[in-house]
């Protein structure tokens, strides 16, 4: 049996090269610095690498949620959690600000967000418009089924948003990828052009592309702000009359306090051309399926021991966020590993050293999906396009609620699903490849005809 570190495939030498270069210590710390890559320990095994990437996830979670200054940079004068407030990632550009009607050029990175008409009269707040996994132009990615909205114990739909960092924003804007015509022009202008967002580099101390998807619960009278990272948001529902684009709903905008219940952070690093996929949840979201029913110690945000509702089933259609719905009854199909639970406890304790009431100690890492056989040049290879994801499946109970499980292609796997993401220019594999983001599908046409949504 081979004992030295080896990677499958003729190209998979990325980890070896990283291991041989000097690396930073992997001690947990409260730091506003987004890590450039995982810190790899030797000897490399499946579980040690998982641990290395899990720590990357936690350090990234802390850095992205660090209190931000007005310009979006982390406030290094304070420690995370002493007070709840606007985070670094909340200053990043939201998807609707990038993929605009008629393919208009996005405003510069520093420009304030534009609001839909319906929201303008309301007090300032964060705009949240996405309402669960419904098949409309707001979806980050397309599910095998329209997954359905997630409904909290108050009968209210959770809301999602997607933001990207400046590196990824620049990659989209400078290449004109924010409109259909821009994408066509990009691919036509050079036969070698492909979508390839920047990889973080420890050598150059650069953070590459990072995309974030957050799920929020509207706080009701029985919900306490102290239990969540809380934001006063503008909960916006775009009007729609075409069931091909999503539920039939009236336009509305309401100012409401919302609490964070789920956070995806996806980071493209030199050792992960297929990106590193980290996902966190509020600790009170759901019980694990493997926990016996009588031992499920709630209260939970998306599960009620007294409910007779079927488990993990979306509500019946029609889906209308203006109408109070039956609360969803959700359990986690795949339990957290013991190693993850231990790591979570470590970081939660660390967060409490800054403030015993730190809202951030209410969050837990579910897991991290990383490519175990990545190419060594941060360029996806045709021989192993997904880079052998580890673990094979990963789901956030608030964002992939109804597709949890372990059936290939049908159950949630970050890379397997995002590998299906495409651009609007599908002439060839080169032009179709969207570098694992569904955002490019949101580009509209400058002619106003709209995407073929």
């Amino acid at each position, binding site marked *: 049996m081979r004992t030295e570190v080896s990677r499958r495939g003729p190209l998979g030498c990325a980890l070896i090269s990283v291991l041989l270069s000097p690396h930073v210590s992997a001690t947990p710390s409260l730091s506003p610095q987004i890590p450039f890559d995982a810190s790899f320990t030797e000897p490399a095994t499946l579980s040690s690498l998982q641990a290395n990437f899990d720590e990357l996830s936690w350090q990234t979670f802390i850095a992205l949620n660090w209190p931000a200054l007005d310009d979006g940079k982390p406030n290094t004068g304070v420690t995370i959690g002493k007070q709840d407030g606007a985070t670094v990632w909340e200053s990043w550009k939201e998807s609707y600000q990038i993929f605009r009607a008629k393919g208009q050029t996005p405003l510069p990175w520093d420009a304030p967000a534009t609001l839909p008409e319906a929201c303008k009269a309301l007090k300032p707040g964060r705009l949240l418009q996405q309402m669960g996994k419904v098949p409309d132009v707001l979806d980050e990615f397309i599910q095998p089924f329209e997954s359905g909205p997630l409904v909290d114990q108050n009968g209210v739909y959770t809301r999602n948003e997607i933001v990207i960092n400046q590196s990824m924003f620049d990659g989209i804007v400078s290449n004109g990828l924010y409109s259909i015509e821009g994408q066509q022009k990009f691919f036509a202008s050079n036969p070698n052009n492909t979508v390839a967002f920047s990889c973080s580099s420890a050598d150059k101390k650069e953070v590459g592309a990072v995309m974030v998807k957050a799920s929020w619960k509207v706080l009701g009278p029985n919900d306490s702000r102290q239990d969540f990272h809380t934001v006063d948001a503008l909960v916006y529902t775009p009007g729609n009359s075409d069931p091909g684009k999503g539920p039939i709903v009236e336009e509305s905008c309401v100012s409401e306090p919302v609490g964070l219940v789920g956070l995806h952070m996806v980071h493209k690093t030199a050792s992960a051309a297929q990106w590193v996929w980290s996902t966190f949840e509020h600790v009170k979201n759901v019980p694990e399926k493997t926990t016996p029913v009588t031992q499920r110690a709630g209260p939970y945000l998306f599960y009620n021991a007294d409910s007779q509702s079927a488990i993990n089933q979306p509500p019946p259609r029609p889906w209308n966020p203006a109408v109070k719905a039956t609360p969803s009854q959700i359990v986690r199909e795949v339990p957290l590993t013991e190693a993850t639970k231990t790591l979570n406890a470590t970081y939660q304790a660390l967060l409490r050293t800054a403030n015993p009431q730190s809202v951030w100690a209410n969050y837990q890492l579910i897991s991290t999906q990383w490519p175990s056989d990545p190419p060594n040049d941060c360029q996806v290879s045709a*021989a192993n396009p997904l880079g052998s994801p580890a673990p094979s499946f990963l789901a956030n109970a608030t964002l992939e609620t109804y597709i949890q499980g372990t059936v290939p292609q049908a159950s949630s796997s970050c890379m397997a699903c995002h590998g299906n993401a495409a651009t609007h220019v599908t002439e060839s594999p080169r032009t179709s490849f969207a570098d694992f983001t569904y955002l490019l599908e949101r580009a509209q046409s400058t002619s106003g005809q709209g995407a073929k949504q």
Partner: protein
Amino acid sequence: MSTDLVNFIGLSSALIGISTEHLAPTIDPVGLPPIFLDYVCARVPPEALNALLSQYATLAADHVPPDEIARQVLAVPGQQKVPDAVLVARSIMKLWLLGVWYPPFAGPKFDGSAVVSDQAYIYSWAWKIAQAHPMGYSESFFGYWNSTPPSLEALTGVSANGQQGALS
């Protein structure tokens, strides 16, 4: 890793011509080899399996090349009935190549055959040998079928004979 598992991987690799690094990479998120060994153990007489594993171990210790090990393990002397151990070895080959367990002593019909698991199917090697993918499981991107696939060597570690160009 147990000696049996090491020998099982080595034997399987020799039989089907795919290297142990491919069948059992050091970093293996899927982990089929121990699952396959357990599956086989539960379904074949221990004598037959042990005979195969020791035969493999002996030949490997003698540094016999894998292709030759395979030939010796699978040899059927003259016009004789195919030995049990050879039938078991053939079933092990099909297990890796197709993800399906064909009971070694069941005869020509497929009765009793079973797909070991969804993972066994999607990681079965016949499809990579075809420079393709299992039907129902593609990781490739739109339009890939209009171009030539990665080489046999890139997918399996075995280089093909002759040219690999597609028809124009």
